[in-house]
C-alpha cells in the first residue's frame, strides 16, 4: 500500500483532537521515552508541550550532537528556471503571475556554476519550476555539466517518474526534495489550482519512487502556514516513519519552509510563529534523530543564529532565487523573500564561533 492509500484511512480531524487533548503527562512521557512513536511526536508538537520547550530543545541539541557531531553542511540553491505551469496560490512563480520568465541555457548554467564555485560551495541544490521546458530533456543537458562542479548534487523540481529518477541518479544526482506542502486534502485542493501539481497522489508518492530509484537522500516537508501546522506535522511524521520502514536504505532530510504574511500578497491562513517553528523542528529531532534537518535563507538572521547550532545539519547562505543571479545579479521576481542575506563568509564565521565545523559537502564513501 502506498503512503497515499495508507493515509486515506486516517482521520485527519481525529489527529487534530488527539493533539489538542495531549496533556503535560503525555509530553513528559514522550520526553522520557528513548524511542518515540508518532503518538509521542503528537504530544511533543502539541500546545501542551510549549512550557517544556527548553527541555525539548536541550534534548534535541543532545541528539543532534550525538548523531552528527559538531558539523554543519553548507549548500547553495541554483535556480535554473522560473517558468512554471502550476498555479499555486502562495508562490511567486505561479503561472498567473506576470513577470519575465527565464530558463538558463547550458552556457548560462556553466556561468552560474563558476560563480558558485568562487563562493566556495560544493553542494548545489538545483531548482526549477514545473514546465515542459524543464523536463528530462533539459535535465539531460544541464545536470551532467552541473555535476562537474558539485560534489553533492540535489534537486528540487517537479515530481518525476521512477525511471527518470533512476536516470538522474546515474547522472550523479544524490538527493531530491519534494515537499508535500500539506497532507490535508481540502487545503491542498484549494491552494493548487492548475497544472500537474494538482495531482496530490502523484506528489505524495514521490518519496517512494525516489526510494525505488535508490536515491541517496530524499527531502520531505510541509509548507508551514498553509494548514493547521500541528496536524500536518503529525502526517509528515507518519510519512517519515513509512519511508524508514519501506525505504530504509535512503537517507531522509527535512526542510521547513514557512509562509510569512504579506509575502507576494498571499496571506497564510495559519501563520506559524518562530517559537512554534522551534518546537516543530525540535519535535522532529526527538522523533527521528537521524533526520538531516535543513534551513534556508527564508528565515531571519537572528532565528538562524539561534537554531543552527542547536539542531540544524545543513544550511544555505548567500542565496539567490533568480535564474542567472549569481553571475549577473538582477532585480527579477523572487520565489520568496530572503530574510538572511548575509554573505557566506560572515555566516560561516558565526558558525565557527558557535563551535561548529563548517563543511562544504559530505558525500558517501566510494562516491566519485
Amino acid at each position, binding site marked *: 500500500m502506498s503512503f497515499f492509500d495508507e493515509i486515506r484511512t486516517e482521520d485527519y480531524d481525529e489527529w487534530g483532537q488527539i493533539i489538542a487533548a495531549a496533556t503535560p503527562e503525555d509530553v513528559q*512521557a514522550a*520526553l*522520557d*521515552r*528513548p*524511542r518515540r*512513536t*508518532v*503518538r509521542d511526536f503528537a504530544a511533543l508538537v502539541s500546545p501542551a508541550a510549549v512550557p517544556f*520547550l*527548553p*527541555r525539548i*530543545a*536541550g*534534548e534535541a*541539541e*543532545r541528539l543532534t550532537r550525538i548523531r552528527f557531531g559538531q558539523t554543519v553542511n553548507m549548500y547553495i540553491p541554483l535556480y535554473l528556471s522560473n517558468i512554471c505551469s502550476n498555479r499555486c496560490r502562495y508562490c511567486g512563480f505561479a503561472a498567473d503571475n506576470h513577470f519575465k520568465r527565464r530558463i538558463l541555457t547550458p552556457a548560462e548554467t556553466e556561468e552560474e556554476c563558476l560563480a558558485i564555485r568562487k563562493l566556495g560551495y560544493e553542494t548545489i541544490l538545483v531548482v526549477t519550476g514545473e514546465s515542459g521546458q524543464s523536463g528530462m530533456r533539459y535535465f539531460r543537458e544541464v545536470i551532467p555539466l552541473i555535476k562537474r562542479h558539485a560534489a553533492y548534487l540535489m534537486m528540487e523540481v517537479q515530481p518525476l517518474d521512477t525511471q527518470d529518477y533512476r536516470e538522474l541518479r546515474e547522472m550523479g544526482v544524490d538527493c531530491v526534495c519534494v515537499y508535500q506542502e500539506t497532507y490535508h486534502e481540502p487545503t491542498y485542493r484549494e491552494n493548487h489550482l492548475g497544472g500537474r501539481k494538482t495531482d496530490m497522489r502523484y506528489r505524495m508518492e514521490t518519496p517512494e519512487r525516489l526510494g525505488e530509484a535508490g536515491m541517496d537522500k530524499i527531502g520531505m516537508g510541509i509548507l508551514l502556514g498553509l494548514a493547521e501546522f500541528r496536524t500536518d506535522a503529525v502526517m509528515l511524521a507518519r510519512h517519515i516513519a513509512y519511508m524508514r*520502514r519501506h525505504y*530504509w536504505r535512503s537517507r531522509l532530510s527535512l526542510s521547513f519552509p514557512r509562509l510569512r504574511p504579506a509575502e507576494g500578497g498571499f496571506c497564510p491562513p495559519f501563520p506559524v*510563529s*518562530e*517559537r512554534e517553528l*522551534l518546537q516543530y523542528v525540535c519535535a522532529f529531532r526527538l522523533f527521528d534523530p537521524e533526520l538531516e534537518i535543513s534551513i534556508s535563507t527564508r528565515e531571519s538572521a537572528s*532565528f538562524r*543564529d*539561534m537554531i543552527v*547550532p*542547536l539542531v540544524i545539519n545543513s544550511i544555505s547562505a548567500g542565496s539567490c532565487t533568480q535564474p542567472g543571479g549569481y553571475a549577473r545579479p538582477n532585480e527579477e521576481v523572487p520565489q520568496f523573500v530572503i530574510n538572511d542575506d548575509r554573505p557566506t563568509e560572515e555566516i560561516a564565521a558565526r558558525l565557527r564561533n558557535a563551535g561548529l565545523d563548517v563543511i562544504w559537502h559530505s558525500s558517501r564513501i566510494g562516491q566519485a
Partner: protein
Amino acid sequence: METAMTSREGAAGGSDLLSFGGRSFKSRLFLGTGKFSSPEVLREAVGISGSELITVAVRRTSLGGGDSTLAVLRELGTAVLPNTAGARDAREAVFAASLAREALGTDLIKLEVHPDPRYLLPDPVETLKAAEILVRDGFQVMPYCQADPVLCRRLEEAGCCCVMPLAAPIGTNRGLVTREMIAIILEQASVPVVVDAGLGAPSHAAAAMEMGAAAVLVNTAVAVAGDPVAMALAFAEAVRAGRRAYLAGLGRSSTRASATSAVENFLRDQEAGA
C-alpha cells in the same frame, strides 16, 4: 515498535498473544527438543513449561528403532516447528523444508543453515537465499540468523514472518552476548523478534523479554540442566516476568533540563514580544 503499544493490555491481565505466521501463542517461551536424556523428561519439561511451539529436526529415519519425540509432542498437543538443522546451504535447507512440510503438513519452518560444525553459526548468504525461495513457495519462514540488523531487515523484506537473531553461539549458554545488536534489531523490525540460541539461564531470557523481544527459544539450557523439568518451569516464569516488566514500562530516565542560553534568550524575547 508500535506493536508494543497494542499489547499494553497484557500488563493488566488481558490478552498478550503473540501472533505471526498465521498462528497465535499465549506462551512466549519456545523450546527445542535436542539433548534431553529421555522422552519422559522431555514430556515433563515441555508440559510444565506451558510452551506451545517446540522444534524438531528432519533426519533420515533409523529404520530399526523409532524416535518418539513427535509422538510425545502430539500427546501434549503443542505446535511442532520443524527446523532445517544440518543443512549446509540453501539447496539443502529448501529440501529439508519440503520434507518437513510433507511429513507434518505444516507450512511453518525454522530455517537454519550452519555449515560451520564447530560454532554452528548461521550462514547469512545461504539463509537469505533459502528464505527467499521458501517464502515464494508458501512457507512461513522463521530464520535463525546472526544478530545483524541489516540482515534482519533483508530477511523481513524477503517476507519472513519473524526473525530469530542469536544471543550467543548455539549451546554456549552465554546469554545476550549480542545484546547491543539485538537492541537495534528490536528498534527496526516490524516483525516479531524471537531471540534464539545461547540463552543459558532464566535471567538471560528475562533480560531479552525486558528489551522487547517477542519470544525466546531455549534448548540446551533446559535439556542439560541438573533438573530439566524444574529449569523448564524457571524459564517459563522468567519469560513471563520479563514480558510483564516490558509492558509495565521500564524505569524512565529523565532528560537534561537545560538548554543553551541562546534558546533561553530567544524564548524570553518571544515572551516579551508576544
